[in-house]
């Protein structure tokens, strides 16, 4: 071991001494052999010649000895690297192009990977999140998503007691509070949690304590744990925070703990039926259920999260639950029986919907990187064609083929690593611009950063890239007989083989670009379709909501407040209509009512989206009245008599009948018969991309705890300020939630689509650019190589246009081949895109034709420049050059 190390040391630091010793050793040997031969009777001259012949060349022996020295490969690598740097810096145009090309590809991959890392890979601030599951108790008789059914507390706590699959289980609820601080009110989202919440998430406060079961006892519930953000913003990171308190909805809560920075669960994206306003949670309070609430089975409760015991799978827990549910169902009213228990992995539920998008993007940038590799490989090929002479000389001087291949791979490695460095810079820039694109509903996207994992990924990518780009030129060189090549003293023979490889690369690149461009084209078409969807309401309508605190617990007081607020809103200059609704379109809120329509073949458990609106709602939202009349103020006295339906409802339930005067019966709490007085236009409620569902509107005088909509002729900003001051004038302790226009809600609803469309378009554009550079480079290179041929052709009478045609024909052939392959590939590749399309087929002819045309035109233009140069070759000079 020590001798090995010493040898290594000597190889590197005493090389000159070693070489000198070796020379001496060999020359003594030669001398001794010669002396021996002289003794046996040869003449000294003859002896020396014989000796040399026998030794087979001193230089060869010396090289053989050097080759076995310890660490010689490192020394070689060092040599190769130095040689590589020298050759690369001798040709800066080539090097910069190759590095930038690869850097774009690598940078794009690193950037997208940093997003994947933040959203899908990086661990959450909860211990072992893989074992966290949501618990739902859906009833398959109701045609509603199972995520709508949080378990009733009675069921939940029974399951918790009886099951053996879970380590812990917790119930919590979300609510908004008015947080008053020095006369100013702000709205904070809070989670009301039972005593096992923090333990289930395995998250503990950085300061103070968590909320316990003690805190959940009646009379002890006025304690709060706050978020790190709130501690900083509201209390200026005060160190005596545990002695302070918080006023929520006029009640004071003792602060008992501060959570770590990352913990703001639940976020709006965490809960399957999350409400957008609850972006992050700032305050955790005791849920403080009364014994009767804890035994409640009729109403669905809040949210339930459980932690599986180690080694228990979801399926195992699920089967245990189904036996428990058999017993629990017997405790229910017959018409409510049929409850099931459903467990959903928390991570799946949070990021499941963005997983496919992120993988799609990663696939796209992977293609971009492949195209970049193709470019760099082509550049290297072109260059190695020009370097055949140099390589031939090296081979003739005794460099082994493996050595030369290694040299070429080393150069590719240098390019790859440099490009990796530049790629990191690109990725950094991308992350700087990411917030501009962030649709706001991709969990933790804002936390994307270049951490260690991303850097390692980039390094691995650089190495892979080097291999991909270096292997083709190296193979080509190793196939060519370099010494023969030197003898031929020309570059025609090998050039043919090179040209084929390069041409094949261009075809592949063109095909890949076509796939990317058509995907981008389809997404752009989809986006345009989404943007031009008729939402059915006016974009300029302002929306807000007010959360009343317990001071307004009496219905009369609430009504008084709203009456006052509505009249103040109507009095704002420029306001033309004010209305209210319990579930605003695009706000992720929903109410369903069971109903029957007279004269229709009704089904069991038929549900419809029910809306309670004030008379001003339709005009404030500019929803068109198609038939009959809207609600008047008088109608609000008969809230259980009159309804208005939307067009979808009328079409479905009153097909070929006049809906006006038709009868609809509700069956929720008690049977209630109503008459249809009007039909209004459809609105997009759940999302812009879902076609409108049947809806039914019921009149109320004021929207209690719903949304308020205001239509005004003045700028939304001014009106928003007026709305705030109107509220402040009534009660300074109340805060209005974000005042937004419907247009802003619409924009938020299409943000995800904008995000994916713009990213894919940018990457497709980068890919196109790279492929064009590749095509241009190949054409320019082949023009350079064929100068002599063109010279001869022109000397023999070819016209300039003939030469141009000759050159363009090659480009056109490559493009056509590439387009054909690309069409075939994208025909199948769009299948991966299907889920992302809206209102456009995967094989949309218009998109495909325009994308092909774009690619063909760009490609021909890129080829035209070198072709013109070929045509302008002066035959005399071209021939003289050789």
């Amino acid at each position, binding site marked *: 071991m*020590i*001798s*090995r190390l010493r*040898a290594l040391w000597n190889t590197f630091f005493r090389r000159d001494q070693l070489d000198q*010793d*070796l020379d*001496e*050793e*060999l020359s*003594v*040997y030669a*001398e*001794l*052999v010669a*002396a*021996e031969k002289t003794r046996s009777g040869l003449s000294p001259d003859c002896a020396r010649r014989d000796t040399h012949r*026998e*030794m*087979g060349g001193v230089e*060869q*022996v010396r090289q*053989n*000895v050097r*080759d*076995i*020295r*310890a660490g010689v490969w490192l020394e070689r690598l060092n040599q190769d690297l130095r040689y590589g740097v020298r050759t690369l810096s001798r040709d800066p145009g080539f090097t910069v192009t190759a590095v930038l090309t690869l850097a774009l590809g690598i940078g794009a991959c690193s950037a997208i990977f940093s997003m994947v890392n933040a959203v899908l890979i990086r661990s959450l601030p909860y211990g072992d999140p893989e074992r966290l599951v949501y618990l739902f108790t859906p009833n398959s008789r109701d045609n509603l998503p199972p995520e709508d059914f949080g378990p009733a507390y009675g069921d939940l706590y029974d399951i918790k007691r009886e099951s053996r699959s879970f380590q812990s289980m917790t119930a919590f609820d979300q609510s908004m509070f008015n947080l008053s601080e020095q006369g100013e009110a702000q709205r904070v989202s809070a989670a009301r949690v039972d005593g096992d919440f923090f333990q289930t998430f395995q998250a503990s406060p950085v300061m103070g304590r968590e909320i316990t079961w003690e805190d959940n006892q009646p009379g002890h519930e006025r304690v709060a744990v706050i978020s790190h953000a709130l501690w900083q913003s509201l209390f200026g990171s005060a160190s005596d925070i545990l002695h302070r308190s918080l006023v929520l909805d006029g009640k004071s809560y003792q602060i008992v703990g501060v959570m770590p920075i990352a913990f703001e669960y639940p976020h709006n994206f965490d809960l399957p039926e999350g409400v957008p306003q609850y972006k992050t949670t700032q305050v955790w309070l005791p849920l403080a259920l009364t014994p009767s609430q804890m035994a409640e089975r009729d109403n669905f409760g809040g949210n339930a999260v459980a932690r599986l015991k180690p080694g228990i799978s979801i399926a195992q827990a699920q089967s245990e639950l189904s036996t428990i549910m058999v017993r629990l169902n017997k405790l229910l009213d017959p018409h409510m029986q049929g409850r099931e228990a459903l467990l959903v992995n928390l991570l799946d539920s949070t990021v499941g919907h963005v997983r496919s998008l992120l993988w799609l993007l990663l696939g796209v940038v992977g293609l971009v990187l492949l195209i970049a590799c193709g470019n760099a490989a082509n550049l290297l090929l072109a260059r190695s064609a020009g370097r055949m002479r140099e390589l031939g000389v090296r081979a003739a001087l005794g460099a082994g083929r493996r050595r030369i291949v290694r040299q070429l791979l080393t150069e590719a490695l240098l390019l790859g690593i440099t490009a990796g460095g530049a790629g990191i810079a690109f990725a950094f820039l991308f992350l700087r611009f990411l917030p501009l694109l962030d649709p706001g509903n991709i969990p933790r996207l804002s936390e994307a950063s270049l951490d260690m994992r991303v850097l390692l990924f980039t390094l691995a990518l650089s190495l892979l890239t080097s291999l991909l780009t270096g292997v083709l030129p190296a193979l080509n060189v190793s196939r060519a007989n370099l010494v023969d090549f030197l003898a031929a003293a020309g570059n025609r023979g090998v050039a043919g083989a090179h040209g084929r490889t390069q041409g094949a690369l261009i075809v592949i690149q063109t095909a890949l670009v076509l796939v990317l461009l058509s995907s981008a084209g389809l997404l752009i078409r989809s986006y345009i379709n989404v943007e031009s969807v008729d939402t059915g309401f006016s974009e300029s309508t302002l929306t807000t909501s007010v959360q009343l605190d317990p001071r307004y617990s009496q219905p009369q007081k609430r009504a008084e407040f709203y009456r006052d607020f509505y009249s103040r809103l109507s009095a704002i200059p420029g306001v033309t209509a004010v209305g209210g609704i319990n579930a605003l379109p695009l706000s992720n809120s929903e109410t369903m009512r069971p109903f029957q329509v007279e004269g229709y073949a009704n089904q069991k458990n038929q549900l419809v989206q029910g809306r309670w609106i004030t008379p001003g709602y339709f005009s404030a939202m500019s929803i068109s009245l198609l038939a009959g009349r809207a609600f008047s103020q008088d109608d609000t006295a008969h809230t259980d008599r009159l309804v208005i339906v939307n067009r979808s409802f009328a079409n479905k339930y009153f097909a070929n009948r006049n809906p006006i005067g038709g009868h609809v019966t509700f069956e929720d709490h008690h049977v209630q018969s109503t008459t249809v007085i009007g039909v209004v236009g459809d609105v997009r409620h759940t999302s812009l991309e879902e076609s409108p569902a049947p809806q039914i509107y019921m009149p109320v005088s004021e929207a209690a705890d719903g949304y308020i909509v205001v239509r005004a002729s003045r700028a939304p900003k001014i009106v928003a300020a007026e709305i705030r001051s109107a509220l402040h004038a009534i009660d300074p302790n109340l805060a209005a939630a974000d005042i937004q226009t419907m247009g802003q809600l619409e924009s938020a609803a299409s943000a995800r689509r904008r995000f994916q469309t713009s990213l894919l378009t940018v990457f497709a554009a980068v890919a196109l650019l790279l492929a064009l550079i590749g095509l241009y480079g190949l054409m320019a290179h082949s023009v350079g190589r064929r100068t002599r041929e063109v010279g001869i052709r022109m000397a023999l009478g070819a016209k300039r246009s003939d030469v141009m045609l000759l050159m363009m024909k090659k480009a056109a052939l490559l493009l056509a081949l590439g387009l054909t392959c690309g069409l075939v590939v994208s025909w199948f590749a769009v299948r991966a895109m299907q889920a992302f399309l809206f209102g456009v087929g995967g094989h949309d002819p218009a998109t495909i034709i325009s994308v092909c045309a774009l690619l063909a035109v760009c490609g021909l233009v890129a080829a035209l420049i070198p072709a013109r140069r070929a045509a302008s070759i002066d035959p005399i000079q071209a021939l003289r050059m050789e």
Partner: protein
Amino acid sequence: MAGTPFDLVQGTLDVLILKALALQELHGMGISRRISQMTRGAFDVKAGSLFPALHRMEQAGWLTSNWGQAETNRRAKFYSLTKKGTKQLHAETERWARISLAMAAALGTHQEAL
């Protein structure tokens, strides 16, 4: 048996060098001649394979070298066995004994038949 020298069988050179150095330290030329002598001229080691082998074995710690006087009064590099080298020689000798026995048995040849 006298005839044309064999090509060295893979792995034989090392053990021959070790054996050559078992008695005394030698320089490169000396090792070459000693091997030739030991094998009655069957193996003639050329410089092209001798020196890389010597340097490799020195790196492996089987040999050590020092500079001394050669016959012609020139400074020459003398190689000698280290402890590790001696151990290696024993191991190799044993291995070769086994191989040659096995080969002889397999081919049905005997010392006398030669």
